Structures are given as C-alpha cells and as structure tokens.
C-alpha cells in the first residue's frame, strides 16, 4: 500500500521540478525474493527531477557532454518536425482534442496537485501516527508495569516489620501483666498489715475511752451526801467572807 502510494505521488503530483537541490531517484529494487528486505530504504523526499513536466533531467545530463545545453531541445524539435513532416504523426481532429484535454489536465494538476498531494500525505500520516500512538502507549504502559512490579517488590521488604510489631505487642502485654501482678501482691499484703494496725489502734482507743468513763463515774459516785453539804456550806462561808472583805476595801 505504501509503495504504491509513493509511485503515484512521485510521478504524477510532485513531478513539477521547482524544488531545490534535486536528489537522484533512489533505485528501489523490486521485492523479487521471498525474504523481506526490512527495513526498506527510506522514501526519497522529492521525486526525480524533470524538466517541463515530462522529460527527466538525466537525459539533459546525458546529452550535455556531446551537444551542450541546447542539445536535447534540438533533438526534441528535430524529432517533432520529422514526425510532422513525414506524416508519421498525422494532424487530425483528435490532435486538437488532445491539445485541449492536455491543457486542461496540466492546468488542473498545476492548480490542485499540491493540495491533493497534501491530503493524501495527511491520510498516510494519520495512519502512521495512529500506529505510532499505539506503540507509544504500549511502551509507556510496559514501563509503568515494570515500575509497579518494582514497587511491589519494595513493599515486600517491609514484611518483617509487621511481625516485629506483633511480637513487640505480645512482649509488652506480658511485661505489663507481670508488673500488674507484682503490684497486686504488694498491695494486698500491705492492705492486710494496715488492717491489723488499724484494728489495734481502734482497740486501744476504745479501751482508753472506756477507762476514762469508768474513772469519772467512780469519782462522781464516791462523793457522799454529807461531804456534799459540808462543801456547799464551806463555799457559802467563803463567799460571805470574800464579800465583807471587798465591802470593807471599797468603803476604806
């Protein structure tokens, strides 16, 4: 498909030799062998140089050494005159039809040739671009896949950390349990001893209070009625004496 397009485009559409330095048309061998000569040589940028649309430049180069610059033109003119005069080519109505048709064709090709060529090239380029895109996408996705695999392998390296963390947890739990048990034991023992001490203190206080009450009761009970009357009389006498003493002191 691609070589066929090249043939058409090179010969019919791009054949106007108004381009810069011409390239010698690369000789492309026919693919006569069953092996594919891949990669095929790159397509030439420009078609072979031609003069006046038809006559290849090689003819002019070939005739230049012998007949100079005007050689091929003389040859062409001579051939034309020979054919007309000897009536090898007879002028008939078809001649004028051919001339008119030729003029129209040349005008059409000159005017629309580059546009059609560009369009055809664009079609081709789109095809190639699509294929290239597919290829680029495939390469990018492969590269990304490789990256992802590498990342997954890196992730794998951290697997020991999980188990370390779990073992740490277990060890910490055991240690906490151990400490808590020791604390419990100590606290219990202390509680028992403190209970004993508190009990003792309570006993002593109760005894003390009881003793004090008993002594008070006995003392109050031992005071007999006569002693009470005697002490009251003595108190009155003392008060009287005290009163006269103060009255005397006041008047004096």
């Amino acid at each position, binding site marked *: 498909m*691609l*070589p066929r397009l090249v043939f058409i485009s090179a010969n019919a559409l791009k054949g106007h030799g108004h381009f810069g330095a011409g390239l010698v048309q690369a000789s492309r061998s026919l*693919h006569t062998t069953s092996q*594919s000569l*891949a*990669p*095929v*040589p*790159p397509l030439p940028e420009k078609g072979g140089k031609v003069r006046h649309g038809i006559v290849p430049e090689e003819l002019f180069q070939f005739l230049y050494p012998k007949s100079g610059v005007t050689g091929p033109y003389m040859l062409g003119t001579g051939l034309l005159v020979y054919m007309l005069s000897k009536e090898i080519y007879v002028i008939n109505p078809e001649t004028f039809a051919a001339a008119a048709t030729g003029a129209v064709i040349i005008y059409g090709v000159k005017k629309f040739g580059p546009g059609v060529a560009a369009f055809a090239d664009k079609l081709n380029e789109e095809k*190639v671009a699509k*294929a290239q895109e597919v*290829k680029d996408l*495939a*390469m990018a996705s*492969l*590269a990304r*896949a*490789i990256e992802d*695999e*590498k990342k*997954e*392998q*890196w*992730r*794998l*390296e*951290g*697997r*020991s*950390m*999980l*188990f*370390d*963390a*779990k*073992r*740490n*947890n*277990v*060890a*910490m*739990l*055991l*240690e*906490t349990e*151990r*400490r*808590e*048990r*020791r*604390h419990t*034991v*100590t*606290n219990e023992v*202390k509680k*028992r*001893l403190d209970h*004993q*001490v508190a009990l*003792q203190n309570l006993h002593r206080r109760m005894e003390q209070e009881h003793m004090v009450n008993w002594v008070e009761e006995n003392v109050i009970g031992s005071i007999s009625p006569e002693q009470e009357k005697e002490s009251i009389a003595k108190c009155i006498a003392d008060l009287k004496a005290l009163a006269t003493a103060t009255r005397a002191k006041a008047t004096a």
Partner: protein
Amino acid sequence: MAGRRAALKAVDWVAFSERVPANQRGAFNALKARSDAIVARLASVPEAPAPIDWSYYRHAVARPGMAEDFERKFGALRIPEAVDTQTTAIDTREAEAEASARAYATESEDRVARYRAELEKFRNMIPFDRMTIGDLNDAFPETTLDKVKHPYWPHKAIADL
C-alpha cells in the same frame, strides 16, 4: 525473670507506613492504634511496686511474729508469669509469609523480564514509515488480513472498516 524478657525490637512506623498498600491502610491503622494503646498502658504501670516498710510494721503490729512471718512469706513468694501463647504462632505465620513473599518475588521477576523483553521488541522495531505491510504484519500479528476467510477486498468484515 529478667532473662526471659525478650528485647523489644524498635519498629520504624514511618517506614512501615510507607510500604503499606492502599487497600491495607485500614488494617495498618488498627494495628498502630492497638500498639500505641499497649505502649501507653505499659508506660502507665511503674516498673516495680513500692517496697513495704517492714521495720514500721514490726513495731506497729502488736501480734508477735506476724510482721516477720509476713515478711518471710512475702520474700519467698514466686509470682507465676503469664504464659506466652502467641509468639510461636507469629513465628509460623512469619515463615509462611516469607515463603509466599519469595514465591511472589520470583513471579514478579518473571513478569518484569517479560515486560522488559516486550519493551525491547518495541524499541528495536523499525520505524513505521520504513515498514512494508509484511513487516507490519510481522510486528503486530493482529493487523494481518485474513485472505482465506474474506477472499475479496477489503479482506475484513464491512463493519470493521
């Protein structure tokens, strides 16, 4: 008792967290929360209980010999330690994980080799504008037109044009 205590291996939680894939993030957060709680609980319990002041109790407790008796029994007491039931299970699971990780790593390497081969094939391909149709069909076998199934142009189902 101190000899049996296994040394705590420092776990780098930051590095650990980096390697957790997105679909296991929840499990990782749960593990971290649990671990932090355990650490906090351990820190809150003091190392050893305050020692009992035996001399005070010897004077304070009236009953003769009670304090000495308690002291003796307390000193002779051996508190049973909790039994570690999980570490062996963890070790077995770690060994299993190791084995499966190695298997996965080899598979992964195979995949990487395959991807690399394909990448090389793509890189060494001739550029498209220098291929013939035959070359294109060799490089991408899916582009070959089945001339047996569709003998007439365009050699593919009309719907695929």
